[in-house]
């Protein structure tokens, strides 16, 4: 029983990170209508930025603040200088662009930070663990859980309660209508892309002390992010959060009893849900 509780806790922690990734990808996919293949690379760059900033300034918290903003700016640049120019060319070109970009960013990581993985310890105050009664649990994981939870709630509030969030949601529903109402749809696209990149960047930064850094770290995460988006329903933000948690917990619980299947279960859950609800958990299309 204690083991199961501990595993569920693990599942929630990783699920929160999956949700952050899925939320960002879902936002980009919903607003821009393109599957962003560079999302995994942005996740990796978030982690590498963190390590560089911490190395430069010697402060983890500053790193956690600055690194995702750097990734958001990179996202802004990608949308403004790249994706935007391809709207007229059509879907396939945007898809190819983000795919190519993912490869380029991945290689850039190797060029800048080297091919060998890097270890990054949590800040001193979050090292070690606490005894929760049923299990001993790393402090840093508890912090990640809280931080990711806050970010998910903040993103949710932004989208639900602010005027700009409402425009963004409207953009997901019907771009033409938003455009006809006199709102600059291109600027909306840029902001959505930057926000999605921010979420990927901070997920990467938060993950760095848990999983360490390696040039391929984004590839592993990209697959999961796509599963989260498909499972939650394309462009559905609540769905992305629920799907992230569901996959994280399923993976952890299965690992308690049948470790070999812990990766396969991610895709098994997706297949099972999509068989029953092809539009995803909360999707309408």
């Amino acid at each position: 029983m204690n083991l199961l509780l501990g595993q569920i806790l693990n599942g929630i922690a990783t699920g929160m990170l999956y949700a952050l990734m899925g939320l960002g990808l879902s936002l980009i996919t919903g607003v821009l209508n393109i599957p962003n293949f560079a999302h995994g690379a942005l996740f990796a760059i978030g982690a590498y930025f963190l390590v560089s900033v911490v190395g430069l300034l010697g402060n983890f918290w500053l790193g956690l603040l600055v690194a995702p903003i750097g990734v958001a700016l990179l996202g802004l640049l990608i949308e403004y200088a790249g994706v935007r120019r391809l709207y007229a060319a059509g879907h396939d070109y945007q898809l190819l662009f983000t795919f190519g970009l993912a490869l380029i960013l991945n290689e850039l990581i190797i060029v800048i930070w080297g091919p060998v993985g890097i270890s990054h310890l949590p800040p001193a105050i979050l090292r070690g663990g606490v005894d929760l009664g049923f299990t001993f649990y790393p402090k840093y994981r508890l912090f990640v859980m809280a931080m990711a939870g806050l970010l998910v709630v903040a993103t949710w509030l932004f989208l639900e309660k602010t005027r700009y969030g409402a425009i963004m949601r409207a953009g997901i529903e019907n771009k033409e209508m938003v455009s006809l109402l006199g709102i600059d749809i291109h600027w909306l696209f840029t902001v959505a892309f930057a926000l999605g990149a921010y979420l990927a960047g901070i997920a990467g930064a938060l993950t760095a002390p848990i999983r360490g850094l390696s040039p391929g770290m984004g590839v592993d995460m990209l697959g999961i992010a796509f599963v989260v988006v498909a499972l939650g329903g394309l462009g559905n933000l609540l769905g992305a959060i629920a799907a992230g948690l569901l996959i994280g917990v399923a993976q952890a619980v299965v690992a308690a009893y049948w470790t070999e299947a812990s990766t396969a279960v991610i895709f098994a859950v997706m297949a099972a849900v999509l068989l029953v609800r092809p539009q995803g958990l909360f999707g309408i299309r």
Partner: protein
Amino acid sequence: MKRREILKIGAAAASLGFPAIIRAQPKEIVMLGLWDQTGAFADVGPLNDRGMRMALEERGMKVLGQPIKYITRDGATQAGTSTRRAEEAIDGEGARFMIGPWSSGVALAVSEVAKRKKVLHFFSGGTEDISGARCHRYSFQWAASPYTAAKTVVDNFMKANPKAKRWHLLVADYAFGWSVEKYIKEVGKTHGLEFVGADRHPLGEREFSNYVQKAAANKPDVVAMINFGGDAVAGAREIFNFGLTPKLPLIMCWSSGVEELIQLAPEIRENLWVGSNFYYTADTPVAKEFVKNYRAKFGTPPGYAPSAAYSMTRLMLAGFDKAKSSEVEAVIKALEGIEVNDLLGRMRVEPATHQTLRPYFFLRCKPKKAMKEELDFADVIATGDSPLPKEYAACKDIGGF
């Protein structure tokens, strides 16, 4: 299009085709390095390539006076891609000597290609099948037998920690993990070890929290990992994050040495014990020279991956020298039973199984304050070369050509 134009195009195409055919029947000896540039071992392939290239460059890219053409292919750490690209290099480029790839599961498939195409194949990795159940005349194994590794690790660890009898294993779920796990358990019996858990994880696993929590629940005296590369690094990091190390010892039974240790902070390496096919402080003249040159070129000392590729290439070239021939069959015959004093010291290729008999290293990582420099990770506390006992040997007949 007129008939004459078609003829012209045909002629042009033929003239383009002919040089290719001429190239495919070379005086030069074509050697293939099947090194992954993508997939799970994407980080290892470039290191393998460094080692093989250095061994060939030492010889001025020549053997027996004939030029060597070194080509590489990316097997993507996948059996399908690796076999396809190997066949393409054999048929298209005339490669007759092949080294790699890095994954034992993939290498078993590549070994079948070597057998079918009658190409000499050298491999280093943790599956015992290459020199065991699926042995044949064309494939050779450089890495220590999983038995040799398990015996070296368990015997020497128990000598230092006689009370650590409750072991929890974390095993990579493929050919290599299974092989080493089997012998760790076999050798463990002789020390009266109790295996309180043995969890298998998929290759490429990065989320180890689930496994570590299970391991902790079993209250072991020691956690032993039988995995490799990124898996081992992610596992060691999570075992530290959950507070198991440094209180409990952690063993990496089959590690690269440098490549994995460099990815772990010194705090994580405390109370870490490591079995490896190579460590850069190996006390042989060849190793000293190689490590010096490698460091000068790449900054870091070489780990298992470049060293294996380097040593396999040297061993293969030693086969050419002994055979005084560049024919595949002659080189194979020369390699069978060859004895050299090389990178690891005394190395011998067992003719009946094509297994290289050589020492395996057991290291203990140094605490941060004992490290003389950043790359001074560990002390070699023992080496072992107990060969696989006859009763376990699965290679009953190495077969003919």
